[in-house]
Structure formats: C-alpha cells, structure tokens
C-alpha cells in the first residue's frame, strides 16, 4: 500500500517525517533490539561468540513459550498470574505419572493435561464467573502452588525413567530442542493469531467486548480458549523445565515466571488493556530480556541487581507505549 501512496501523492517532508514516526511506532521493539544487540557486542567481545548466542536462546526458550501464551491472554484484555505455579504443579504431577508408568509419553501428556485443565478453570472463572482475570488467576497461582507443595511434600521430585532428559538436553544440528520447540510454537501461535478466526476474535474481544459480542462472536468460549491455550503452553514449558535437570521443585520452580513473561509481552509492545500487539513483538521482547541477563552475567553484575535493571527496562517500555 505504501507504494500506492507514493504514486498518487509525492511524499513531501511532512510525510517522510510521519513515515518515520510510523516506522518507530510499529517496530520500536525491533529497533530497540538492534540497538541493544549492537551495544552488547561492543561492550563485550564474548557476547558474539556463537555458543553464547545459542546459550541465550536456550535460556529464554521456557519463558518464551509462556510469553507467547501471555501475549494471547493480554491481547484478549486479560492477564494470567498463575503460569509459574501451574508450571510447578504440572511438572510435579507429570514426574509422578512418568515414574509410575515408565512411559515418557504418559509423562508429557500428563503435563499438557494438567496445564490445560488449570487454564480451562481460569477461563471458566473469567468467562462464566465474570471474575476479573487478575483475581481469578491470582487465586489459581496460590492454589496450584499449594497443591504442588502438598503432593511433593514441599520438596523436589525426580524422574526415574532414562531418556526423559533427552527432551531438553538433546539438539538438532546446533540448536537445542527447547529452542526448536520455542520457535515451532512461535510460528504456530503466529498463524493462529493472524490466519484463523480464533485470532481475529481475540483481537476483537480485547478491543471492544460488547461490539465483539454483537458481532455474533461467542465471547465466553474465546476467553476459555485463550486461558486453556496458555495452560497448554505452560504444560509444554513444564516438560522442558523438568526434563532439563530431570527434577522439579515444588517450592521454587517457576517462581516469578509470570513477571518475566508479562515483561516480555509489554516490552514487545502489547497494550495492557488488550486489542493491540503482536507475537513478533513478544519474541523480540523476550530476546531483549535474554540479552540483558546475559550481558549482566558476562560483566559480573551482581545477580541481586539484575532485577533492578529488568524493572527499569519494563518501565521505560511502558513509558514509550504511553507516548503514542
């Protein structure tokens, strides 16, 4: 379309300026990513090392998968605070199922099932119970963590089936499996959001719920679908998390994952109130977080200060969003 513009109306100086503002408003995350990337390579030569780069990807993959789901939830106008707890719960139950059955497949499916079911419950509370998503998922956050602690008696559970660790620790060519899973999921969610009616409905609902309903959209079902979807993605993340060290801790696994995931979505430019945002933005948002973490490690910044930097970045991102 841009070319049609230029054909009909010769772009004068104001339109060049307005095009630049447009470029910035549409792609500010990518521009920020490029700047941070260049800055990081200039500050530390080890950053560009291929192993380090792959390491960053590996480190962001679990949160990345969750952040994809979080993007969808936030586009619908909601939020999901329960992802970390549900991840621990799904991990704990799936390890039990794995050990009891001796089958990796059963373990994986259990994780997906627990994740989706928790998400489905969130969806029911939000859509049918008309409870604000913040409250509903806060309840789920406390509840799921508590059940995980109860089942594992406050400790960790470890897998006893050989081959389970392969899921997170093997690689294809130079890419670790989790990275591949992340990218496959990213493509799937992208297609879901931009090429199917489900995605269209999610945007519509997040933008104007009443109008969406009057457009004959089953708003309730879409909401339930959205929370079930993020639950399933959390289940996948739980499998990777568990497989990585062949164990999961009921008390610490997944803690604060919701913050990182929400941060990635916001840095990626998705609007808090829904209706506007992109999957691509979230992917760059998560990469920005990964690079910052990596840089702070490489430069020996105290781990206690890393939260501060992350917080700062989120606030800057939100300030930029507000300006438009």
């Amino acid at each position, binding site marked *: *379309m841009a070319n049609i513009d230029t054909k009909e109306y010769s772009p004068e100086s104001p339109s060049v300026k307005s*095009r630049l503002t447009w470029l910035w408003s549409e792609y500010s995350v990518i521009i920020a990513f490029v700047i941070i990337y260049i800055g990081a390579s200039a500050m530390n030569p080890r950053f560009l090392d291929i192993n380090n780069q792959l390491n960053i990807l590996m480190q962001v993959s679990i949160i990345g998968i969750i952040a994809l789901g979080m993007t969808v939830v936030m586009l619908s106008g909601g939020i999901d605070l329960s992802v970390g707890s549900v991840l621990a719960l799904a991990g704990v139950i799936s390890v039990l199922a794995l050990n009891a059955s001796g089958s990796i497949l059963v373990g994986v499916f259990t994780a997906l099932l627990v994740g989706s079911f928790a998400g489905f419950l969130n969806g029911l509370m939000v859509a049918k119970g008309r409870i604000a998503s913040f409250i509903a998922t806060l309840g789920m956050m406390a509840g799921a963590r508590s059940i995980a602690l109860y089942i594992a008696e406050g400790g960790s559970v470890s897998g006893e089936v050989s081959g389970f660790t392969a899921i997170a620790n093997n690689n294809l060519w130079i890419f670790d499996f989790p990275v591949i899973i992340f990218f496959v999921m990213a493509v799937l969610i992208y297609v879901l959001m931009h090429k*199917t009616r489900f995605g269209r409905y999610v945007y519509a609902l997040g*933008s104007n719920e009443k*109008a969406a309903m*009057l*457009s*004959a959209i*089953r708003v309730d079902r879409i909401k339930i679908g959205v929370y079930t979807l993020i639950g399933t993605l959390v289940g996948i993340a739980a499998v990777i998390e568990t497989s990585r060290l062949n164990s999961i801790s009921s008390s610490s696994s997944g803690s604060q994952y919701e913050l990182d995931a929400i941060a990635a979505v916001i840095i990626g430019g998705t609007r808090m109130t829904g209706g506007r945002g992109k999957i691509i933005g979230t992917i760059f948002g998560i990469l920005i977080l990964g690079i910052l973490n990596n840089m702070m490690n490489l430069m020996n910044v105290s781990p206690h200060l890393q939260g501060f930097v992350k917080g700062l970045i989120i606030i800057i991102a939100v300030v930029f969003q507000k300006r438009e």
Partner: protein
Amino acid sequence: MEMHPFVAMNGIEKSFNGVPVLKKVTLEVERGEIHALLGENGAGKSTLMNILGGVHQPDSGQILIGGEEIKLANPHVSQAQGISFIHQELNMVGDLRVYENMFLGSEIRTRFGFLNVEEMCRQTHEILAQLGVSIDPKEYVRNLATSYKQLIEISKALLHKSQLIIMDEPTTSLAEHEVSRLFILMKNLKKSGVSIIYISHKLKEIQEVCDRYTVLRDGQLVKTDIMQNENLEVITKLMVGKSISQDRYVHEHEFGELALEVQGLTSTGLFKHIDFTVRQGEIVGFTGLAGDGRTELFESLFGYRKKYTGTVKVKGKPVHITHPRKALQAGMGYVPKDRKENAIIKDLSVIHNMSLSSMGNFERMGFIQDKKEQEQFNTYKKALNIKVHNPRITIDKLSGGNQQKVIIAKWLEAETDILIFDNPTQGIDVGAKQEIYQQILTLAKLGKAIIILSSEAPEVMRICHSIHVMYHGEITARFTGDEASEEEIMHYATGAKREGEKIG
C-alpha cells in the same frame, strides 16, 4: 460590529500519512451566528473542527480569534479561548454518574476542597431541564438511552459559557421534539452573542436554524453563503454533485412467507406485550422517542439480552435465542446503533471489521484468505461508496459516516434472511443515504425480511411498507407506509393518543 470576524481559519491544510484531507480551506464565523458546515462523508468537516478544537495541528494556515493569530496547541488551549466542542462520537464514561460526566475535569469544590456534589447536581439538573430532559443527575450513564447520552454531551458543552460551540452531528440519535428543543436553545444562545458551528447531514435542520453555510468537498472549500438565499436542492448539489429526490420509494413486489413472528414479548421495565410479524420481502419500521424500548426489544430478539418472555418464530419454527451467535445461526442480523460503543472494533482494520461476522465466507480449510477479504471489501467499497484510502488502516481513522458504511457492509456480508437495522443512516450523507436505501430495497426484493428502527419518522416513512410506533415499551399504533403521516406518528409516539384507537 467589529471589522474582523470572530473566528477565522485561513488557508488550512492538513494531510494524514501523505494523503491530503484539507486543501487551503478558509472558514469565517461571525459573533452570534449559527454557521452550517456541510459536505459528504469524508469531506473533512470533522478534521477541520478538530483543528479548531486543538485536537489536530494544521500543516499550514493560520487561525485568528478576534483578529489575533492563535496557536491551538491542544484542546485545553482551545477551551481557554472559549471554544467548546461536541464531538461526533460520544465520549461518556459509562461507569460515572451523569453529573460526574458533566463536570469531568472541572469539578466544583467547596471552600474546604471537597467536591460540591449538591451544586454540581443542581447545575446539571438546570441545564438538562433547558433541553427538556429530566433524568436523575446521580444516575449512572451506562444505564441511559443513547439519546440521553447525546443530550448530556450537548449540555456539557453548554456548561462552559463558551463563545463558540462546535456541534459535530449532535442530533444523530435524537427524536424530532428533542431536536426542536435544542434549536430553541441554540437560538437563545445566538441572541446572547454565542457563535455556533453546526455540522449535520439533516438538511432540513440546517435550513431551519442556520444563518450561513460553508460547503466542503474532498477537502476543498466549495462555497460560503447566506442560508436564506438557497434552497436545499442547490446545497445538496454542491455537496454531492447531483440532486437527490426525497420522495417515498415505491415498492412493487409481492411478499413471501412469514419470516418472523413475535408474540407477547415482555421484559419487565423495558417493553411489554409486543406482537408483530414480518414477511419475506417486507420492510417494517419501528419508530418512537427516547425510552420507547425499541432498541431493547431488538437487542433481546437478537440474543444480547436474555431476560424476556414470549414466543419468537423464525420461518414458522419456534426459536429460543440466548446469544447473538444463535440469532445469526437462526438467520438474523443486527446493525446496532451507537457505532462507537456497539459496532466498531477500533483496533481492527477496515477490512477486518467488514468480515468479522462472516469469517466462514473467507476461510479455506480453517485459514483466512486475505485476498478474498480484500476483494469482497472492494465490492462493498464500490456499492456503498466507502471513502478509504488504505483499507488496511484501523477503522477509527475513517470519517464517521464511512465507519457506519463499513458496519452496514459487515451485516450485508453475513447474508441473513432477516436484517435488523437500528438507526442505520446515523451520520451518513444525503447521497450515501440514497445508496443505502437502494441496497435495503434490493435486499427486500430478494426476499429478505427487513426491520428498520429509527427515531426519524420521515426515514421510516420513506422506505417502509408498514410502521409500528412505540411508546413506553408498547406498540401504540401501526400504519402502512403510504397512509402514515408524520403528525399522526408523533401523536402516538408522544403518548398523546393511545393504543386501541388505531390498532385493529
């Protein structure tokens, strides 16, 4: 009087994304005059007023107030200059009370710094009373009918003792008697030296109340002149480039089977004992004043409201509709009124708004076909003359009337057998109105059952085969399209005449 006009906008230019919208437009408004700003949908009227209201900045040109050049950097500056702006789209906060909306940002406080609720309620009541409205200032706005919201929006502008009031289509949801009250008020304001810029597509109103007019076409000034000298046909021609007949449409087709039968529909506090039928190919109108319950009635039929009793039959089969989706599946479509609240998805593109209720038409194996959507949109763009430069931009960038056309396209695309239009020509220009009526007529000829709700009696009289008049939730009279007169409709709509005399 003074040498220079009160407000002068000279050589105003404005473009969005390289597309020029205003080209060297000049507008002068004298003290104490009502100045009509006219033009087709997308001509640039709202944009010009947004510049005067400080919402947009012009690319070039100057604005003089009382002969002095002024830069209106933002809406606050504009307001400080004595300019009030009634926007085309309603800007009410539904979760606040009436008086809170009225005084939003300019609350009255007591000596101790607390909100002076009593005083605010008193003033709210006073101003609303001038418009003939009696609503509780402490009522939540979300519970009010659209026409009340529009009247509150108008009152809000009156609150600020302004020198110039911009009214961008203030009467789109108002019934005739509400409009005439507004006009009396406007004439009084005029006498006290206040100037008004009045935008409307209802030319009869314009002639009644305006002193001068300015016509824009495609962002260019076409003509400014004194109202008295002109007849409406000439002005219409200036606006749309052709003359438009205001005659009643003649229908010469047979009706088919019963498409919709409604019996004893009742919803406490909203409407009661509603009976009517619509045949295939028939166009049925519903009219009445604010609070007549017609919108609530059809929102219930469409499944948006669920608490009602009575029977509904579609093509002879009883249906129980509890969700708009079920209504769509039963073959009902509904173009709601109040597009900003009920119809526009402002973050979706123009094309995506058009396809939202009929995604199935654009899917192949579960995936949306962008090209198909685009092609279909182009068909509607031509048929309804939708003015949009790039249909991939979000719909809120379109002019009000063009947004409305997209919403109509959306429901035409759903191809339902029964189509309900609630105030369908809200904000649509005279030329495009004709095209939409033509579309509706074509649908009727194809055997669709059409229902039109409108607060304007002349609108339903022009295209409907039969007309139902509602008052306080009841149908008080039924007419056939050719025997109805505006006067008689008004009698029943205001409750001056009652049921039983007419229905038989």
